[in-house]
């Protein structure tokens, strides 16, 4: 009997949501990514790991359109994309958080997360100028969704505070909330746990798993904490010097000699 392969969380393997094929990215003479291919399946948690400078963040930047790879192609939801721009990636359903928090510092937590709803708000300029009737109803409707997210992330108490003054761990949480407000199909997390203490890390892990399981959001994450990566992810891709050196389940990757060499170094 040929059982359907299962992911770590027990979900069956589903179709490919995003596939990266032979992507190369150069900055002048520097090759940031060379000939990398991998895919992200619907509903999984996919980790991208690798030593510093391996090209992980560049990879995310290619996926959501900040960088245009010179070679290769990226297919999202079965559609090949040329000349991606970040706002079009957003419209297609890709959200992201940044390694160094990129919140709107002058705005409150609420406004930051409300900004994530921008694409879903349809009322035009004239209704906005009146802020009554349809525009107000729309605002309330989205406020309700945002309040659910605030509730989910347990940040009710900082709702009205400007985010610039919040502690780092909370800022990361607000940033996750802002990305969630977009109701993305693919959520890219660039080191969501960098600089956090153990307790904050545990909270963040919980949120990531909950997002994946409750909302069914596909997640691609970059993380340096190997414990976190091995526990959270269904599959791991390992980059080193812009090349892919391994791809598979956490157990496979952990046992891979090339990965061990990349992380521990080899005797020359």
């Amino acid at each position, binding site marked *: 009997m040929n059982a359907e392969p299962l992911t770590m969380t027990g979900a069956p393997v589903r179709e490919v949501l995003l596939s990266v094929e032979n992507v190369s990215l150069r900055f002048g003479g520097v090759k940031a990514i060379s000939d990398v291919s991998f895919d992200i399946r619907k509903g999984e948690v996919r980790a991208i790991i690798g030593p510093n400078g391996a090209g992980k963040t560049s990879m995310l930047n290619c996926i959501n359109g900040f960088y245009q790879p010179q070679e290769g192609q990226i297919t999202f939801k079965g559609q090949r994309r040329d000349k991606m721009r970040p706002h079009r*990636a957003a419209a297609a359903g890709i959200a992201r958080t940044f390694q160094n928090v990129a919140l709107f510092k*002058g705005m409150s937590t609420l406004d930051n997360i409300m*900004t994530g709803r921008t694409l879903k708000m349809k009322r035009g300029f004239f209704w*906005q100028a*009146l802020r009554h009737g349809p525009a107000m109803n729309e605002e309330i409707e989205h*406020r309700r969704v945002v309040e659910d997210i605030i509730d989910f992330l347990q940040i009710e108490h900082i709702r009205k505070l400007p985010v610039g003054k919040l502690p780092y761990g909370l800022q990361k949480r607000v940033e996750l909330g802002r990305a969630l407000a977009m109701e993305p199909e693919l959520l890219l997390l660039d080191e969501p746990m960098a600089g956090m203490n153990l307790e904050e890390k545990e909270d963040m892990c919980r949120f990531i798993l909950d997002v994946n399981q409750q909302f069914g959001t596909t997640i691609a994450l970059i993380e340096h904490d190997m414990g976190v990566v091995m526990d959270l992810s269904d599959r791991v891709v390992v980059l080193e010097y812009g090349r892919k050196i391994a791809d598979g389940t956490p157990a496979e990757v952990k046992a891979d000699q090339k990965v061990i060499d990349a992380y521990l170094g080899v005797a020359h």
Partner: protein
Amino acid sequence: MFYREAGQFKSTYQADMAVFPIRQDRIGLAIILAIAFVVIPYFGDDFFITSVMIPFLVFSLAAIGLNILTGYTGLISLGTAAFMGVGAYACYKMTTLFPGVNIIVLILASGLFSAAIGVLFGLPSLRIKGFYLAVATLAAQFFLQWSFVRVPWLYNYNASGAIEVPQRLVFGVPVTGALATPETRYFVCLGIVVVLTWFASNLVHGKIGRSWMAVRDMDIAAELMGIKLLNAKLLAFAVSSFYAGVAGAMMIFLWYGGGEAADAFSIRLSFNILFMVIIGGLGSLIGSFFGAAFLSILPTAMKFGLPALGVPMAGATAEHVTFMLIGGLIIFFLIVEPHGLARLWQIGKQKLRTWPFPY
């Protein structure tokens, strides 16, 4: 003690999202509006209305315009005066082309012309920011001011190069021209400023305001939220220039009553309005009013107030002393509170909320 939100519970999101969620603020606003609409025209003399209140309203509107661009969207502009000039000349041309149209409609419509010009000069903002954008808008300032002098079509080939404000009636009452009373002109200015401030407040508290502030605070993240940077920036330029244009038209038609307009819209005015926005508070509508009051009412009050108080001074000396005092005050306020008078106001309100038991 009197300024508390205790006991005012919000049970709907609508109430929570109100611009003035605290009842005392709403009462305060109502009192201010009552003073503006009833007390000032009733008790104020002609001098007070024409030399203090009308300039204050005109500058407030221009400052709101610039604040939308610089304070909310983070784009520095040194071309405000030029955009005001576009509004003034557009209004002048329209009064000659469409003599039958209501002058208030024309003043508002002239904002559309400066909005178009503003968008045109805002195009470089996608590529350049900060000081470089300031220089690009400086080009707008010089080019447009040059056009006001060199394109005689704009002032109807008048030999003196001046704008002659024609007499226009609204519902049988003269609004512009020599016969318009200060009270009428004041009411028109006040009405326009109140309505446009309301619109601005609606815009900055909604989706559009959030996308402007997102562009200001972190443009790459804004783009990732699906905000198109070019559209957001150009919309900010359009709205900002619209306000400036209406303010410019008001300045010539309701305040100056004509004259050599090209000189009025010089770089000095641009700087003045930029100072109003900075001193009042970037990214704050109430700050725009504070800034305009600080830089337009205070000098007038000092110039005429110091001799009136019995300080023995000739008019010219009073003017020079005023310059020095205002300069000193600007420095003082920027050191005490770099975020402007609006922040001081905010801190004051916060203190008042917990007074007399701050802990």
